[in-house]
């Protein structure tokens, strides 16, 4: 059986558990952000761009065998680190699970501030857009 959204969220929360301070935590996020681009260059189109005021995100979605696959990128490395985690959690899941996901791990690992609706780093819009894709696929290909 495939790993559920909650399970991956717990995994990530676990990875953060051992960090002593914000320095270690952010070093880890930055490492995740520095990983190879999470999106194929050809998908970094204007249409896939979600402009925040502070940083921007590109998001692409595919549908295969009832599952949604995301790839994404950001111009800011910390944003990208969080994008990386979101993709780990949501990519390869069913539309229903994506739509109903609560993404509580963000709060748990202390990154809630990055998802403040007014922070304008593109992340809030990105999550909205991920759920929107899931909904669109669900509508198109049936539940």
């Amino acid at each position, binding site marked *: 059986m495939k790993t559920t959204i909650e399970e991956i969220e717990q995994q990530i929360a676990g990875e953060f558990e051992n960090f002593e301070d914000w320095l270690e935590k952010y070093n880890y996020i930055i490492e995740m952000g520095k990983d190879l681009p999470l999106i194929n260059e050809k998908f970094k189109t204007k249409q896939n761009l979600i402009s925040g005021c502070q940083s921007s995100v590109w998001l692409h979605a595919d549908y295969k065998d009832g599952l949604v696959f995301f790839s994404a990128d950001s111009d800011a490395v910390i944003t990208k680190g969080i994008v990386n985690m979101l993709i780990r959690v949501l990519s390869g899941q069913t539309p229903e699970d994506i739509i109903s996901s609560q993404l509580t791990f963000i709060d748990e690992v202390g990154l809630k501030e990055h998802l403040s*609706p*007014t922070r*304008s780093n593109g992340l809030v819009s990105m999550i909205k857009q991920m759920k929107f894709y899931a909904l669109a696929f669900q509508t198109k290909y049936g539940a």
Partner: protein
Amino acid sequence: MIKVDFNIDKVRKDFPILSREIYKRPLVYFDNAATNQKPVQVLNRMDLYYENQNSNIHRGVHFLSQEATSAYEEARETIKTFINAHSRSEVVFTKGTTDAINLVAHSLGRKLLKAGDEILITFMEHHSNIVPWQMVCETTGAYLKVCNITEKGEIDIEDFKTKLSRKTRIVALNHVSNTLGTINPVKEIIKITHDAGALVLIDGAQAVAHLQVDVQDLDCDFYCFSGHKIYAPMGTGVLYGKEDILDKMPPYQGGGEMIAMVSFEKTTYNELPFKFEAGTPNVGGALGLEAAIKYVNGFGLATLAGYEDDLLKYGTEKLLQIEGLRIYGESALKTGVISFNLNKVHSYDAGTLIDKFGIAVRTGHLCTQPLVGFFGVPGFIRASFAMYNTKQEIDKLVEAVIKTREMLL
């Protein structure tokens, strides 16, 4: 009607200004319809903000900015709940009722109104709900129609129905009249207006501190009020608008937070409610407004209305015992506002002398000049009540009015 937990002595202690003396007499403050006084809870909230959280908000990454932003958006949420708006996007912060009405008039003037269209208001509007519409008529060629009122100071519904036409685009009227105290049947009027295909703006400046307002139940398209008339600081106010309508409206002021992307070729606007909030907002003021709403909610508006109703009844009875005194606004549905005149006495003379008793009443046209004309008087003397007023204070007013009358006749 008054809940047991409404302890007037305790309430009065919350308002520092009430212990002030004027001409060596304890202040009696009956000018609440102009602006009411602020409890320490509101002042403390503002101080707390400026001493701990002050920062420019939105899009700031640093801690204080995030904290101030959250506080500001929570204040919006509190207001949303207070008037039962459907979403926070429908709650726009303004500097007051006047600002809110001008916003709507100007924005609708740019998109909705064209020559020959009609805007319908009533004879009992405050200047702030007259002049913006006159100005927009001037720029668009629309006409201002005015619904009659009765001698008792109520809207003439038959006249309203006659004047509401297929050309009417907007109806704008107050929920409660600042001069007469009349509580207008806005729900009914909104229904009739919607059936005729027009939008309704409610000027709630005099309502929110005295009635529980539910914008979804009323089904109004816009609702405006000022903070300073609900125990909150000056320079604050709210425009409620239905989301789908606000969404289609062009922005009012440009600059600051209201943009999505600015270039010299093309500027795009932010989403609601930010589209209508240009410039650095009055964060401290918004938090003061939130604190005021929480303070009011602590008693419940029904409790306060009950208490103020008692004052209204008592004051009306006592004042009417004075010879030659006429009260304007005799509707059965009223808030605690008593506008009156003494036969042959000029309101300015009366106000000048009543003041000398340490009693603050307002005199003159009360920003409703057409009403002054309607009743054929040079002005009114208005006593308006708030939660901290007492019957003893009303007794003092009655005594002062009697003395004033003796001196002037």
